[in-house]
């Protein structure tokens, strides 16, 4: 038996539906594809004749119940043979390196691009004239895949192409003159050839070369910032010129005037060969660059199939790095030349800069002094902290910082909150860069240890109270001490460390879970945290504590210390466990009873 080879038959109507309704995100892109074809034809013509002045003309004609749009260019045009070759076979593109041009000179793929017009029109008419032929050709394509081709009796005077589209039912909105103008400016606003639009009455040019694409050594600052405001609707702090030889990329990064969520990637406006590719590109800048919004044009990067972002390949990665270097160099220079603006940027974008500083020693050196930290004295930069002292104390845990902050400033002790993201790591690195600086990690219990001890006499006076109170608090896994500290209004200070807080949260959770999950919690509780104690440090400077020490009523002392304990917990926002709640409900009643009896 002979083996025969067959070809798949493809249903063009189905293909068109697939491409136009699934590949592209909106019918609007038909304008982009029209502009693209025109641009490609003009570029091909310029390749043949470098002095050629390209232009594009788009006219919207409104009749009773429909619209026609005509897009005209003075590019190369097609011969009959080229029409058969390029317009009849999908996927074949005149731009692929036919016509003797380098592949990268073209942004679109004619065949496929033209198909998008079927999203808005049931017929595409194309009239085209090439210098290679004396004839002007008329081609009419239908979405079912059929087409006709004929010679036009009166040939065009010069090479070029006109495309006519008649609006499809319920697609008229995409043919409204205002909409068409808007779409042309949106996609083609940066194209290097004049685009003229007309509604039959008036004519207007819709594009202009923006200031940042003009080849100037020094960009006029105000104009560049104005441009950013026009495009993004924001008054930016400053701008950074972007350039990468790889990918032939130019652009501007605008510095955002407000804090940004670093978990959300910023979206950039990107052009490929001056045609808008996306307003939501996420991949042109490195991840840490969340403090800028940029607009760029690339002449040599690859688009994705839907042409709505750049394709992620190695070239794009190199571009990312190059553009990242532009941002970095800008910051380095600014720190030296314009301290005021530099500080302003740091104050807003310190989170972003902190990430950068951790990854890069040079940037660390540059920035660290200006970065703000939360301290027990208020918000200080490292520079201000150094003025105060060179022995840096910090706590890496937010909860511990909260406990410390309440008393540290009263003891004139500067403690930094290292609980915010990156802060502990940044602080730990200080001694590497400043030889006279030491960094020490402290916890609340170390702070209370540093409080002033009682004298022998005072100790003796408080001895029986301390013994009894300490024993009373045993069942809450808490130790008791009496010391002197400021401010005297605080009667007792509850302090924990990471382990005790963690253990406490497990114990508390267990009280609220069912038997099965309680048993799971039991088995995962690390043994290392089960023996850790919290601490209640009573303040001898507080008159109430002194009185408690001198009373001989042990029942009252016991009750009072439990209430002090619960009160300290409540002050620190610790949810109470069942046995602690009992103190609240019964202890207070007992106290009242005791007081009324006394009276």
């Amino acid at each position, binding site marked *: 038996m002979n083996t025969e080879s067959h070809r798949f038959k493809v249903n063009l109507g189905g293909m068109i539906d697939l491409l136009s309704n699934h590949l592209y995100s909106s019918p609007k892109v038909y304008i982009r594809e029209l502009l693209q074809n025109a641009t490609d034809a003009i570029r091909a013509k310029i390749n043949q004749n470098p002095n050629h002045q390209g232009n594009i003309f788009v006219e919207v004609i409104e009749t009773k119940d429909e619209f026609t749009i005509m897009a005209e260019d003075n590019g190369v045009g097609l011969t009959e043979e080229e029409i058969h070759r390029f317009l009849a076979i999908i996927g074949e593109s005149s731009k692929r390196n036919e016509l003797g041009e380098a592949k990268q000179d073209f942004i679109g793929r004619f065949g496929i691009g033209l198909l998008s017009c079927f999203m808005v029109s049931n017929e595409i008419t194309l009239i085209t004239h090439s210098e290679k032929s004396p004839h002007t050709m008329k081609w009419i394509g239908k979405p079912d895949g059929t087409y006709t081709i004929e010679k036009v009796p009166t040939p065009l005077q010069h090479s070029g192409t006109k495309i006519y589209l008649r609006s499809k039912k319920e697609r008229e909105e995409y043919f409204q003159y205002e909409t068409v103008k808007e779409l042309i400016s949106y996609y083609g606003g940066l194209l290097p050839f004049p685009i003229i639009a007309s509604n039959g009455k008036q004519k207007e040019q819709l594009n202009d070369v923006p200031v940042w694409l003009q080849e100037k050594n020094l960009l006029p600052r105000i104009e560049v910032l104005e441009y950013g405001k026009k495009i993004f609707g924001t008054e930016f702090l400053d701008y950074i010129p972007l350039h990468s030889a790889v990918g032939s990329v130019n652009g501007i990064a605008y510095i955002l005037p407000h804090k940004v969520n670093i978990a959300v990637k910023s979206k950039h406006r990107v052009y490929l060969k001056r045609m808008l590719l996306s307003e939501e590109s996420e991949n042109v800048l490195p991840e840490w660059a969340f403090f800028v919004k940029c607009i760029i044009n690339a002449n040599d990067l690859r688009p994705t199939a839907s042409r709505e972002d750049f394709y*992620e390949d190695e070239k794009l990665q190199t571009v990312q790095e190059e553009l990242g270097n532009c941002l970095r160099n800008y910051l380095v220079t600014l720190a030296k030349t314009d301290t005021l603006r530099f500080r302003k940027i740091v104050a807003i974008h310190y989170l972003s800069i902190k990430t950068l500083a951790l990854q890069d020693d040079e940037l660390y050196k540059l920035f660290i002094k200006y970065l703000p930290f939360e301290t027990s004295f208020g918000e200080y930069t490292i520079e201000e902290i150094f003025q105060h002292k060179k022995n840096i104390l910090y706590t890496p*845990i*937010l909860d511990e910082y909260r406990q410390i902050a309440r008393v540290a400033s009263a003891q004139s002790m500067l403690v930094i909150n290292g*609980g915010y*993201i990156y802060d502990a790591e940044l602080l730990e690195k200080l001694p590497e860069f400043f030889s006279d600086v030491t960094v020490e990690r402290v916890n609340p219990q170390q702070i209370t240890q540093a409080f002033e001890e009682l004298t022998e006499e005072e100790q003796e006076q408080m001895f029986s109270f301390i013994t009894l109170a300490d024993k009373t608090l045993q069942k809450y896994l808490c130790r008791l001490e009496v010391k002197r500290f400021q401010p005297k209004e605080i009667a007792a200070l509850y302090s924990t460390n990471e382990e005790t807080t963690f253990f406490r*949260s497990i114990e508390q959770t267990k009280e*609220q879970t*069912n038997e099965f999950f309680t048993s799971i919690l039991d088995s995962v509780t690390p043994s290392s945290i089960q023996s850790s104690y919290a601490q209640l440090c009573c303040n001898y400077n507080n008159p109430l504590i002194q009185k408690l020490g001198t009373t001989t009523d042990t029942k009252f002392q016991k009750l009072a210390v439990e209430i002090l304990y619960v009160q300290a917990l409540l002050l620190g*926002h610790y*949810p109470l466990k069942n046995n602690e709640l009992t103190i609240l409900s019964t202890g207070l009643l007992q106290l009242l009873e005791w007081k009324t009896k006394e009276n």
Partner: protein
Amino acid sequence: MDYTQQIEEILDKIYDLPNSDAKVALLEEAIRIADSQSDIEQAFWLRKDLIDAATFSGNKLKALIHFTWCVTQVDKYAEVEKYNFTEEDILWEYKWVLDNVAAYPTISKQKIYELLEDMKRRYTKNGYNLRPYYKLYCNISMEMGEKEKAIHYYELMQKEKPDFNSDCKACDKNFEVDYYIFLKEYEKAISTAKPILDGKMKCAEIPHFTYSYLLFPLHTLGKHEEAMEIQQKGYRLISQSKEFVLALSRHIFFLSLVDVKKSLTIFKKHFLWGYETLQISNKFFYYLSSLVMLKKLSQENTKTITMQFPEIFSLYNENGKYEVATLINWFEQEVQTLAQAFDERNETEYYKKTIQEYLQYV
């Protein structure tokens, strides 16, 4: 200030933070406030946020603890009209919890299976298929070194189509890669990983983990350049978060075979993550890789190293100089103790054999 305002203020601060200890701490603070006011509704949603932040910042034990609270409240109150949460709201997080549960040798095998069955019951009840359940069963079997079971559940998993509660494509693909590596089918693992390596599939944790998994297979197959390339790319992705301590251990192991100095640098930089992690299986792999690295150092005649161990480290000394031989002893003891705990729980010899496998490269 009203307590809801206090919580709002905390949530404002969280808004621009990535998952981190800092974010977890702030959420814990907010939860404490909600708890002390017995605001169960608020406490539930805050805990959901916390479970997310804790899972993706290397605090998985905290995620587990708060998850048990959420499930219990769902069982108690899901039918009560005034609460907005339902059982559906804990199904996704259940996967995270089970994904990690075998990491604690103190939790018995029976309890793990009971958890799996509990999850299965809840998925079925709410009309979701069992793809995630089979996947987790397979994963747990892999972690315990039970090959037949792993194969069985992997095949069951493949028969179920992904639905609303299934993991993302990148995570599923990464799991396939891990599975083939477990079976030691390295060629297959590498070809399976192609869409991830090409950047076509990715998420918050992928390709981070995939890169680290593939280092050793690539090395074994002699694809040295590719291995070095993804080592560099991969390390950049994982070096900022202790969530990736397991991935780091794979880098340390791989580098100790090809560039022991670099391996030592990474070990020094991230020792605290391995030392402090409460996910014991991660600690095991971190220590085991470090042991291989130290033994390689010793083979190359390095007698001492200088580094800043934390003060709580039992061998800590102030001058920062450590005998390599002493460190080897310490790590050897640790990995043996951990392996024994896991093998006893798992009723296999998988961890013991893993030690032997790693050490044969020394």
